[in-house]
């Protein structure tokens, strides 16, 4: 049985910047591997470490945000490559959800399919949340996927997330493989009906 995501509580780490692409989230050279194991340590590697491997100033290196489980981002997060390695790295670094203004299509799908909810806030609410977290890193943030709201301090902000993704997450149906397999013989019918490439000779 898969985990259901209804209310996610935790502290957040604010990561500013628009159009952050998956090459920045997980540089390509760390994809040279046969599994997703251990990817968490390479999250935002080139922004967190210099060429000698020494830490650079970055919210993810900042002691005051250690242990945060919610990643706070801006607009267009996860653009670029389809690499699932990017959301895998975020999840394996200990994050349980991402809040932002908007997400790239493939990134959103990949994250949802591995049980990493990506929810959107209106720009004003998101700015208020960034400010609140930067002022008070120990602030508790609640993402309520059932009532579709984010609560922090004395503020309640409506969240948006594609409805089918929200349902999949709250009902523990975010990994579709079981349901896809249920199609059974229907799959053979489609295979027989639809042409497929064949090499001549």
């Amino acid at each position, binding site marked *: 049985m898969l985990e259901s995501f209804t209310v996610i509580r935790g502290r957040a780490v604010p990561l500013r910047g628009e159009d952050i692409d998956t090459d920045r989230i997980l540089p390509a050279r760390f994809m040279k591997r046969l599994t997703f194991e251990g990817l968490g340590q390479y999250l935002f590697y080139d922004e967190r470490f210099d060429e000698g491997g020494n830490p650079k100033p970055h919210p993810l290196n900042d002691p005051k945000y250690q242990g945060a489980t919610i990643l706070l981002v801006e607009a267009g997060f996860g653009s670029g490559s389809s690499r699932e*390695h990017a959301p895998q790295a975020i999840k394996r670094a200990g994050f349980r959800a991402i809040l932002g203004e908007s997400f790239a299509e493939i990134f959103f799908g990949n994250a949802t399919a591995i049980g990493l909810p990506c929810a959107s806030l209106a720009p004003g609410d998101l700015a208020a949340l960034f400010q609140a977290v930067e002022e008070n890193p120990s602030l508790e943030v609640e993402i309520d996927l059932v009532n579709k709201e984010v609560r922090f301090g004395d503020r309640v902000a409506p969240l948006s997330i594609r409805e089918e993704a929200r349902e999949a997450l709250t009902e523990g149906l975010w990994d579709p493989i079981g349901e896809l397999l249920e199609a059974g013989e229907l799959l053979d019918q489609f295979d027989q009906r*639809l042409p497929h490439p064949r090499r*001549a000779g």
Partner: protein
Amino acid sequence: MGRTLYDKVWEAHEVRKLRNGQSQLFIDLHLLHEVTSPQAFGMLKDLGLKVRFPHRTFATVDHIVPTHDRTEPFQDPLAQAMLEALRENTREHGIPFFDLGSGDQGIVHVIGPQLGLTQPGMTIACGDSHTSTHGAFGAVAFGIGTSQVRDVLATQTLAAKKLKVRRINVEGRLGPGVYAKDVILHIIRHLGVKGGLGYAYEYGGSTVEAMDMESRMTLCNMSIEGGARIGYVNPDETTFAYLEGRPYSPKGPEWEEAKRRWLSFRSDPDAPYDDVVTFRAEGIAPTVTWGITPGQAIPIDGRIPLLEELPEEERAVAEEALAYMGFKPGQPIQGVTVQVAFIGSCTNARLSDLREVARHLKGHRVKKGVRALVVPGSEWVAMKAEEEGIAEVFREAGFEWRMPGCSMCLAMNPDRLEGDELCASSSNRNYKGRMGSPRGRTVLMSPLMVAAAAIAGEIADAREVFGIGR
């Protein structure tokens, strides 16, 4: 009411509705490569599942392949392990594999069309965002993550949600020295890198209709850089002429039947679109990027924008871009020194790209101090280029002629930028660190513009360097 190609292909492939309202979509063609598939095969094994329809699955190796010396074992044991994992997985599951030296190996988005695997009206998926390339044939083709690669291997289907469709018309004639690459950079510059979120892009209009297939592939390839998951062009006689006689194309009586079927997928004249945008071809100049997203682009004779000229929401990324690239607002892009020139990638490493550059390159020399590489998109492209004398033109001009692969587009092989080198590149992404150095800088442009930069040693207008149309 008419329907778009997207609607028709979707309806023909919708197996059923899922409980959460998504569709279960049948995938006609699944393409695999070595980077995003090993984990998927691992998941399959954990679930005790097999590849459901191996005859709809094809694999090649492209991302990690060295382009200088492909002797095995590779110097990089991780790269070798990825190649061997794919060999083993395809052997175990009976999947055709276009291995190194088979004559068919190459960048997955180059070989699909080249072999005739890519056909109109198909749904195509691959664990790579540039799968949008195959839309040039009137296929609905999109990039997927590894968990979805597992889903397609196990069921030949995906859980998917329908997109909106934006029709992008490009009308008129492109000027000499202006190519599909310039068109797509121009489109992304105007619609933005987030402009396509939630949309499929349908490209049309007289400019697109006049384009050859490989230009259409370039256009569709970069749909993803504009935020759209897919891009496509309606199939027509140009499409059929390209496909006829290819190894996997239908033959004999099946050919005529296939053409009729393919035509039936074309968008109806009265098909409704969620949005329509029109561009004029005459207004498009050779276009280059100046920043760290493909939308940060300007005409070659333009200047890097002043922050106050940009919409407020674009200024923060622009500032970050200026700092990273080391450029000043208001500075002309022409004349910026380049250290590296790269012609390659799934956007622009096809035979027509290399032919077009070679046609102008004869008699020119790469500027001393510039490292210039040509990486053909496939073994077939490389072979044809040798036969036609194109490879020799590049070599004589001082380019390194390499073996096929993705190469420094994402630098998972030994080809990469060093330090803060600036690279004139025919690839698709100018993200920070994209070409392998965390400080490396990429300026995107057409292959001919890359050649011009290599010769001039600086970012230059190919029309001036090669005396085109002026």
